């Protein structure tokens, strides 16, 4: 029952958020000075041409009618047509989103693989040399401008060393795998093409490091703080008093319990990574939503920007729900026992 209640509340919240976000983005996009019809028409179009395009797009309707139309379409699964690309926004987002998600997940995985051990070491050797080093690394991660790091990595690993590719998702001239999930790492394996798989992995490494490095700091900080909390708990003392070795105590008792509260934080960083991908994608020519939305904003492509904002908010709320669920699954203390 509690679970159903939660679900109902969250779904209600979802509707509210979508409504609010659409209203906000709609208002902002109409505050921005600029006439999309003019943009489409091009430099040399006469007023008559512009007027015609404006009419085709329904931009000559009163604002409330435009919004009404937009919402009506939205609830029928139609995010409108992009002014810039002339394609349905939903189709564009579908084309770009998997790349962003793949990058964000790779960055998240990387930051967890490195950040968790770092945070654990930091907490275990609290205020000692290892802690200082780990914290410095974490803070450096948080403080590094991603766009700058990305450029540096490209120049080094692609330009000078030529170890790793510097842009895109696959080598030039390679045909992408048949789209099933949109994740190249999965699609290449489904297609049984290991060469292509390794190529995709190579392309993913530098952008994932760039994006993941920032998150690494967040993860390490969170784990450190949660571990410090757990290491101060009585049950840790019990485990030690019963002869479990230091690392057995840390890894089997403290870490799982530190991970439980961290799940929320780590899960929400996935959201940050999705938005944060914008700059990384620009630098690495990663064909994701980031580059798409930056261009859309610059060309006053309202439907695309609104579609993006609504979809990301939607994902954000869904992510929150998923984290809630996960939390319930991994923490035995929350449940329907009582």
């Amino acid at each position, binding site marked *: 029952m509690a679970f159903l209640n939660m679900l109902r509340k969250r779904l209600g919240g979802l509707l509210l958020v979508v409504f609010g976000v659409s209203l*906000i983005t709609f208002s*902002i996009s109409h505050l921005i000075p600029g006439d999309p019809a003019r943009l489409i028409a091009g430099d040399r179009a006469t007023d008559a041409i512009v007027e015609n395009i404006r009419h085709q797009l329904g931009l000559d309707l009163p604002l409330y009618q435009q919004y009404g139309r937009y919402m009506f379409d939205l609830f029928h699964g139609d995010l409108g047509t992009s002014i810039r690309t002339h394609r349905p926004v939903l189709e564009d987002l579908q084309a770009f989103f998997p790349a962003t998600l793949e990058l964000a997940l790779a960055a998240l995985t990387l930051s967890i693989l490195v950040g968790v051990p770092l945070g654990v070491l930091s907490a275990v050797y609290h205020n000692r040399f290892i802690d200082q080093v780990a914290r410095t690394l974490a*803070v450096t991660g948080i403080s590094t401008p991603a766009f*700058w790091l990305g450029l540096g990595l490209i120049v080094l690993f692609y330009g000078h060393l030529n170890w790793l590719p510097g842009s895109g998702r696959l080598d030039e001239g390679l045909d992408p795998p048949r789209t099933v999930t949109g994740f190249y790492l999965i699609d290449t394996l489904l297609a049984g093409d290991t060469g292509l798989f390794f190529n995709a992995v190579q392309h993913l490494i530098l952008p994932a490091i760039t994006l993941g490095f920032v998150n690494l700091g967040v993860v390490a900080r969170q784990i450190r703080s949660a571990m410090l909390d757990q290491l101060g708990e009585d049950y840790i003392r019990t485990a030690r008093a019963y002869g479990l070795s230091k690392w057995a105590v840390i890894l089997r008792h403290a870490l799982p319990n530190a991970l439980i509260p961290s799940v929320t934080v780590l899960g929400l960083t996935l959201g940050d990574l999705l938005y944060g991908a914008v700059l990384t994608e620009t630098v690495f020519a990663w064909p994701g939503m980031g580059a798409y939305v930056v261009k859309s904003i610059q060309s006053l492509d309202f439907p695309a920007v609104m579609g*993006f904002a609504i979809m990301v908010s939607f994902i954000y709320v869904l992510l929150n729900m998923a984290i809630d669920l996960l939390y319930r699954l991994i923490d035995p203390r929350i449940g329907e026992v009582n």
Partner: protein
Amino acid sequence: MTTPITAPAVAPLPAASRWQDKWAYLAHQIRRSPLTMAGLLITVMVLLVMAFAPWLASHDPNALNLTQRLAAPSAAHWFGTDEVGRDLFSRVLYGSRQSVGVGLFVAFASCFAGGLLGCLSGIIGGRFDGLIMRLMDIMLSVPSLVLIMALAAALGPSLFNAMLAITLVRIPFYVRLARGQALSIRQMGYVKAAETFGAGRWHMVIWHVARNAMPPLLVQLSLDIGSAILMASALGFIGLGAQQPTAEWGAMVATGRNYILDQWWYSTFPGVAILITATGFNLLGDGVRDLLDPRQQGK
């Protein structure tokens, strides 16, 4: 909880509550942590650079010299020159005023506005509270960079507008924090006592709550300055920050990346400046968190 397993917590805080002793204790804590110390040093250094940029700079940061374009670092130009021959060392120094200034402004302004709104929301409660919190939920779920970029595009690109935009998206975090504090303080009852002063004494109530909600807000604030500096430079990077000829680090990195293969110095120095400054503020913020967050004490 059981008795503490470390030192019997009898002594650590000086019994005297004189402010000199408190400061001495604070100084002791900072000195004990080399990272906080490093953060403090960097921060002080950056603030000094900000204040004394005109005296430290070797050139007029805006003076063009088209015959000295993209010159490599040398005795005359320590960090080299940019694409119109301006001295990069001087521009990096002056750039601190924009980048760090924005960071400080954003952190303090969003802390103040969000803190106030959160306290009010917590104290007044009811529909007002519900409305504010829903609004904050929505703001939190709109991708922040999109919101900032859209706002900057709507208001026109300028450093001030970028500042306003970043401030706006940071506010919800403080609202939530302050509201949580306000609610728990409300539970403790002395707000109720203040309420009996009557409706005319609202400011007393707010003052009570705000003063008690301060420590967690300050922790968040100190952690935020670094990320605000980064966000400002990211806006500069995509061209929504300070306008030319004003020197701003993010914009310098952005322009410099066109030259990164042959003129590495152009985007390297401002990039390093961002990195060092943000690291300094973040280390200091970490230190402040450790000092003010009771959970981290005694461990």
